């Protein structure tokens, strides 16, 4: 692929754990403002792929570029965040001993070093931004609640909210609707759709109905490689995909 106009380039990534190949020459691209959904059976390498993008796991071979100029494999996790990539984990992880407000505060864009945070004060601008996000994720009333008392769905949203606070160019969202009620799923779909365009999104999800409702483009991973790509209908009719899923 020669035209370098994508948001994210992953090329020939291979990761192995004790001989098991979690990623096998994986190549994948994300356009600016695009929402890409990734599906695949357990162990297909979805989470490992995210780990590579965010610097948690280093690949054995391959390249990962963020835009045209940033080599992700050379950066540490905080540097990757600073470059504009945010990630929501599969298991919702918010800071349980901090309030909703404090959770968002920590995600605020701004100085991340110890000495800077020691002196940091919230400006009214930042305060407004937090209020905005609280509004978006529907947690305005819970702003002083501790993270741990939130419902499961609320935690998911809080986490997405924390991503929004960082204002990243690329959001990696791992299983956003796991454990949600249909109503919550619907609202999450709305939320994610509203984010696309301004941000690039990579969503990993098992819930096919949900994927269908939000995705324009779907990529199917299996055994660490892409086996199909395209819109939902095309992917669902792909014989290899059927084989993989029926096998599951």
């Amino acid at each position, binding site marked *: 692929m020669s035209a370098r106009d994508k948001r994210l380039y992953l090329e020939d990534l291979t990761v192995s754990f004790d001989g098991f190949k979690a990623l096998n020459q994986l190549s994948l691209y994300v356009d600016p403002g695009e929402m890409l959904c990734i599906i695949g059976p357990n162990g297909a390498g979805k989470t490992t792929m995210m780990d590579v993008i*965010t610097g*948690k796991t280093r690949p054995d071979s391959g390249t990962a570029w963020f835009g045209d100029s940033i080599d992700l494999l050379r950066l*540490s*996790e*905080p540097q990757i*965040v*600073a470059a504009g990539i*945010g*990630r929501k*984990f599969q298991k919702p*992880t*918010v*800071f*349980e*001993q*901090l309030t909703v*407000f*404090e959770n968002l*505060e*920590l*995600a605020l864009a701004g100085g*991340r*070093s*110890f*000495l800077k*945070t*020691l*002196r*940091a004060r*919230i400006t*009214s601008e930042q*305060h407004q931004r937090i209020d905005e996000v609280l509004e978006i994720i529907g947690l305005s009333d819970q*702003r*002083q609640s501790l993270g741990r008392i939130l419902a499961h769905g609320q935690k998911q949203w809080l986490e997405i909210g*924390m991503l929004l606070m*960082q204002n990243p160019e690329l959001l990696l969202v791992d299983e956003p609707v796991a454990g949600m009620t249909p109503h919550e799923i619907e609202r999450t779909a709305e939320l994610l759709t509203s984010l696309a365009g301004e941000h690039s999104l990579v969503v990993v999800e098992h819930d096919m109905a949900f994927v269908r409702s939000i995705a324009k483009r779907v990529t199917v991973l299996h055994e660490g490689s892409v086996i199909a790509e395209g819109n939902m209908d095309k992917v669902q009719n792909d014989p290899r995909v059927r084989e993989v899923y029926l096998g599951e």
Partner: protein
Amino acid sequence: MLGLWHGNAGAGLHKDRGGSSFLAVLVLVAIAVPVLNQVVPASSALHISPFGITLIGKYLCYGMLALAVDLIWGYCGILSLGHAAFFSLGGYAMGMYLMRQIGPRGVYGDPILPDFMVFLNYKSLPWFWYGLNHFAIALTMVVLAPALLAAVFGWFAFRSRVTGVYFSIITQALTYALMLAFFRNDMGFGGNNGFTDFKDILSFDLHSDKTRVVLLVITAAALAVSYMACRAIVDSRAGRVMRAIRDAESRTRFIGYPVESFKLWVFVFSAVIAGIAGALYVPQIGIINPSEFDPINSIEAVIWVAVGGRGTLYGAILGAVLVNYAKTYLTGAFPEVWLYALGALFVFVTLFLPRGIIGLVKAHEQERGKDQ
């Protein structure tokens, strides 16, 4: 809304009720104890003997050590089983100064070399003893030695993401290795006997009650200042990041905080507090020797924090004072069985007071709040 939030974040002590009570007690101690010792006649029931002064001074030093442990463990989730090392290094730096102050009044009357060096046939002062006859340099070393050790050790450990139990155990190895090293007579730190027989500090006689009272007041002040510094840190955004690291380390990393550098800063700061505590401990107790490095001491400091209440700062100090008071009392009153009592206390606290005494008090308050 805005105001409320700022109230929570600011370093305002009016929110920190336990802390302000604690500071009030410290002030009280700093005023009452000197009065009771110096003004009240020895025959009076209210007189505090020099022995009492030493004890209170010791508790305050231990309180400071507990504060240091709580900052790193209670807020950053890093359990160091090696804080005795920093405490002892601070103590040794101060001890070296005090040894140099003895001058020609030592047993062998050598104007420069401390007795143990004369005894071990040292011809000249080892290089690392230079300058320590100046109080300012000694103070610098009190801060620098623990800070350096913490920085080097922490840099290696955090960078390699040594966490949890692994970190605890290698800190234990660290203090154990230092203990073995300081036990060696050839190290130039007096071996097993360490330093003792101090005469004076800044030309004040260490054996006079007045000097001891002043030392106590200084210790109380140091404890208050370090408490306020720790409180300021944990109430700042940095403090919230620390708690975030404690509860979900990789999440914190993924919203962009350099977790390792945070840990390192806090670790070093905590080591410095421990070092200062050690430096204040030595002139009051009158001896420093390698058994201060004993890993058991580090574990005990952690237990003080757990008993008082982890993650509250003043709880840690309360725990240190209470446990040590219990130890003083029990070793005197029941020399045969005090270990049973102490052991049972640790088991009891972990099982029934997982959040320590402060947690118990808080729960009690909440109960009452609900009733009203």
